[in-house]
């Protein structure tokens, strides 16, 4: 009886110590997350509901900043361009990343070299990516412009034509983002047992059908996570657009991210910048919920 009571007390003491250790590890990290993530978010939400005088908070105006953004501030156009940017980027990034992962999963010569080479765009900074592609697309001084001219197509300015500028930025973004999808997919494919794939190949006699009906359903979750990350990154993207087009020509690449940058740091209209930032945050939440729903559907 006494021995049991002692053991219970020791167990209780040990659990208390573990809880204290856990708290000591958790709360500093939690405080850091609150400081760097939630505080700016709270600030942005609060500012979006107030007027602003540079960085000073002004009068409370409720949802007036949102109403103004969508009635006279071009809000719908910015959201539309951002959605086109995100969807266009996903349409290029996902097939490219998955396709390359499927190729790299096969036993080909120099596989490690190809993996390193193909992952390279991910380590290039967005600013450098932007300048690189801007030079590449330059109608008069870039290689693509030279190629078009040599083919007798005249002067073709991808980034200076309002009809093609967004496509040019999407291409640059996809080039920078596909390695993430590729690496996620490749890692997931390596968890699929070889026996399963070999058995499926025997059944279907087609590598494509094996991938389509066996491998893909098993790695779908990882691909969705990569898709979520690509979506969030693209919605929040500022650097690439600033470097390549600055939102032009004629507003063709005026995505939400660059509007936040311009309104905050060029026009010093913090209330407008924070309102757009809240819209971006809401769209990110919506997109994430959509993907989670798809994932949950898979699990069920």
């Amino acid at each position: 009886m006494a021995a049991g009571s002692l053991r219970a007390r020791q167990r209780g003491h040990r659990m208390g110590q573990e809880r204290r250790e856990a708290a000591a590890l958790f709360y500093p990290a939690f405080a850091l997350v609150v400081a760097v993530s939630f505080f700016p978010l709270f600030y942005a939400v609060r500012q979006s509901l107030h007027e602003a005088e540079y960085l000073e908070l002004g009068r409370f105006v409720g949802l007036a900043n949102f109403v103004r953004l969508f009635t006279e501030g071009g809000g719908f156009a910015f959201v539309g361009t951002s959605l086109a940017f995100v969807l266009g980027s996903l349409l290029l990034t996902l097939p490219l990343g998955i396709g390359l992962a499927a190729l790299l999963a096969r036993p080909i010569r120099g596989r490690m070299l190809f993996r390193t080479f193909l992952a390279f765009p991910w380590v290039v900074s967005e600013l450098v990516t932007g300048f690189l592609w801007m030079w590449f697309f330059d109608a008069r001084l870039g290689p693509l412009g030279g190629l078009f001219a040599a083919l007798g197509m005249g002067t073709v300015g991808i980034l200076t034509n309002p009809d093609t500028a967004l496509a040019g930025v999407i291409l640059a973004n996809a080039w920078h983002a596909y390695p993430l999808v590729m690496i996620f997919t490749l890692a997931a494919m390596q968890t699929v047992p070889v026996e399963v794939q070999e058995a499926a190949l025997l059944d279907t006699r087609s590598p494509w059908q094996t991938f389509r009906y066996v491998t893909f359903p098993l790695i779908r979750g990882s691909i969705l996570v990569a898709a979520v990350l690509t979506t969030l990154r693209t919605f929040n993207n500022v650097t690439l657009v600033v470097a390549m087009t600055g939102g032009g020509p004629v507003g063709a690449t005026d995505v939400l991210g660059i509007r936040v940058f311009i309104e905050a740091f060029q026009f010093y209209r913090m209330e407008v910048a924070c309102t757009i930032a809240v819209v971006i945050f809401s769209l990110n939440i919506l997109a994430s919920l959509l993907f989670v729903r798809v994932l949950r559907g898979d699990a069920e």
Partner: protein
Amino acid sequence: MQTRRQALAAAGLGAVVSLARPALAQPRSVEIWTFEPPGDGNLVAKAVGHVAERWAATNPSIELKWNSMPWQQLSPTLLRASRARRVPDVVMLFSPDMPVHIAARTIVPLADRVSAWPADKQADIVRLRQSQDAEGRAYALPWQVRTSGLVYRADLLERARVAPPSTLPEWSDAAAAAMGGETVGFAMGFNPAGASISAAWFIVTQLGLGAAVLKPDGTADFQTEQARRIVTWMAAQVKGRTPPTLPLDVALQEQEKQHDLFSARRAVFLPTSSDRHARMVSQSGLPFEAIGMTAYPTFTAGKPVPALVQGWNLAIPEAARSPDLAWQLIDFWTSGPIQGAMASIAGMGPVRRTALEHPFFREPQSKVIRWATEYAAENPMQFEFPTNASVLYDTVVRMFAQVLNGNMGVDQALAWAEVDFNQKRRG
């Protein structure tokens, strides 16, 4: 007893002095936020390097701590840092950004310090309107100034047997005559990524024609005959000539790409500022005489547009740790000998008239700076920029882009621009 007390006092004093000495001898420092630290990478870095070198020679106990960031980041970073009161001692600010900082009270007035100078020293320095408040109190001093104007390929004009233009019709005819092959007439763009040069050209050309641009209450006054004429003339360069003197793909590029085009010898004319002339010569590899500079043309010969003079300023943030040392540095940087040397190193417009006594100004290479100085003195611009000039610039380039791309007619675009600017401006 007294001797003992004196000895004790002397020992105590000695201890205090020996304890205080490290603090007294500790090197003092001035932190500067700059877009260009001292170096050899380009002409501006070399000029800043000269300042650092001369400062170290004359003030060995005061260390300069350089904190470099992209030029566009200086103003917004100072605004944010001022809230946290984590600011440097001296900050570089471009003149269009000055009104924001004066209004937001992130920098201190320098008027009292300037008025402590001898009268001739006060009269000698250039004052930029945007660096002063409504009462004319200076909040910063420029360390270099530039005058906007038209850079041109003198060699191509000579070959085409046309003179540098003074009117807009002459300008378009000269461009048409001198262009050819891969060389376009104008390197001029209306893209929000780089908007200041083309937008400022539109503003000063309107002022030269007698338009107000802004009403006395600060709202837009764009729907004028002068604005219509200028926008229509520009649209004709894109659509009214075959081949166009300004191709649409060039017209929708941002301004750094225009400089690249000119440096690559692919354009006859480039609206820019006088400080860029030396860089265009150095980057294009052309001889100095092959690149000239003149005032922006207008519609009336012999009546030049007013000179837009802008520049990089040195200001002291409101919460600076060492404002006196900061002022010592500003005083040094804006002195005649330093200004003369910077002009000779990087082709920068001096902020002191006495700097023109530097031997460099007797050499042919100083021609453009001398022209810019005289032009600015003879044609001062009377225009009150809005608190945030970038809103005005952005509206103007978007308006032009709508017209040049065929989305809007001239009248429609000017009406749209008025509404756009009035919505975004700060009162």
